């Protein structure tokens, strides 16, 4: 069970890292998705700032969860984020069914649909599993290991950013030529 909890924690951390980086790569599209969920008039700058805040929150939560495995406060934060995903999926399904959620920026074409709600629920369930207490000896990583994890996280974040940029540009080009 300890291993499952650790795998859930690491998996979610990487997912948040990739999702945050991909959203930052195409912030304008993600801002458009954020605007969908705002029922009142909001200045464009504020929507963009909100989108940036969501992307950075995911990125920071992912990196912190990955690099500081023994910090107990991060798990509830990740669970709260996952519950937020469920709420957003539900609202999106109710009011904007079939529209792209840009959950992973240009990396995927995930939409507000029933499968999206199921995915969000699975993420929340995984976050709940990651809350299980594990012996400190299993999560004890020293400064050297932390640096290694941080460097690996930076590489994965950069790869996600680059991939999202490349896919986003290709889709825009396709739209322009069609």
């Amino acid at each position, binding site marked *: 069970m*300890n*291993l499952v909890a*650790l*795998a859930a*924690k*690491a*998996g979610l*951390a*990487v*997912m948040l*890292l*990739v999702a945050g980086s991909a959203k930052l790569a195409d912030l304008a599209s993600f801002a458009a998705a954020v605007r969908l969920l705002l029922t009142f008039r909001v200045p464009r700058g504020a929507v963009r700032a909100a989108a940036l805040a969501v992307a950075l929150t995911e990125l920071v939560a992912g990196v912190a969860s*990955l690099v500081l*495995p023994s910090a107990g406060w991060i798990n509830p934060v990740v669970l709260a984020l996952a519950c937020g995903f469920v709420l957003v999926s539900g609202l999106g399904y109710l009011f904007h069914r079939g529209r792209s959620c840009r959950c992973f920026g240009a*990396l995927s074409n995930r939409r507000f649909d029933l499968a999206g709600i199921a995915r969000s629920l699975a993420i929340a369930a995984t976050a709940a599993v990651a809350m299980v207490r594990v012996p400190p*000896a*299993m*999560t*004890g*990583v020293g400064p050297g*290991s932390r640096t*290694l*994890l941080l460097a*690996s*996280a930076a*590489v*994965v974040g950069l*790869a*996600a950013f*680059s*991939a999202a940029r*490349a*896919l986003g540009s*290709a889709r825009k080009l*396709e739209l322009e*030529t*069609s």
Partner: protein
Amino acid sequence: MRIPVYLAVAQWALLLALGVLVILMFRQLGRHLTVTRSPAELGPAVGSPAAGFEYVTLAGPGVPGGVPGGGRDGGPGGTAQSFQPGGGQASLVAFVDPTCPACEELVTALNAADTDGELTGTRPLLMVSEPPSYLQISEPFRATRLPLGQVQADATLEAYRVSATPLLVAIDGAGIVRAAGPATRRGDVRAFVTASLLPAPDGGGLPVVSGARDGHNPDMMTAIAGEERSLARKGEAAGG
């Protein structure tokens, strides 16, 4: 030295994510390199006579047994065939390979066009150069009902200048190449079909069939436009 369990688990998760991202980028790069190649490097020259070639028929799911090497359309497997362009019959030859993602997109588009009857009037032919067993790994190739053959000689690939796949070639009823270039989408297929059905230059004008401008491939549409301009110039010269 003992590695902490969490470190091992986290590194595996990161490695997995990195692998997925690299595959995504690799696919995108491959698609970009094949689809954006200029017509000058790929495909036979528009207006030139298309070359005939030999090929061996391959199997698909519609054939009893459905194994590569068997025949299609109920015919015997692995039979040698000859493709002769012209003879009053327009042709659409697609050079595709099952391991190429952009080729899968083209075969999917061709299958859909065939199902909707959009290939009527033209003779479609899918040509692969990879081993027939590779067909099983690709769903569009397994599902296709279109005639499928394996190229038998490198000379064929050289004659058609198949430096990358996918390559779609529209040949008119007189055996003249009317359009050639990369294609992946339904709109591209429609435009190539239209190009293959254009009347022969000696036949007079060039009526634009409805939907002829629906193509999405700018390279290919440029080729068609160039051909039309060239024919228009010939018409003007003949007219005085």
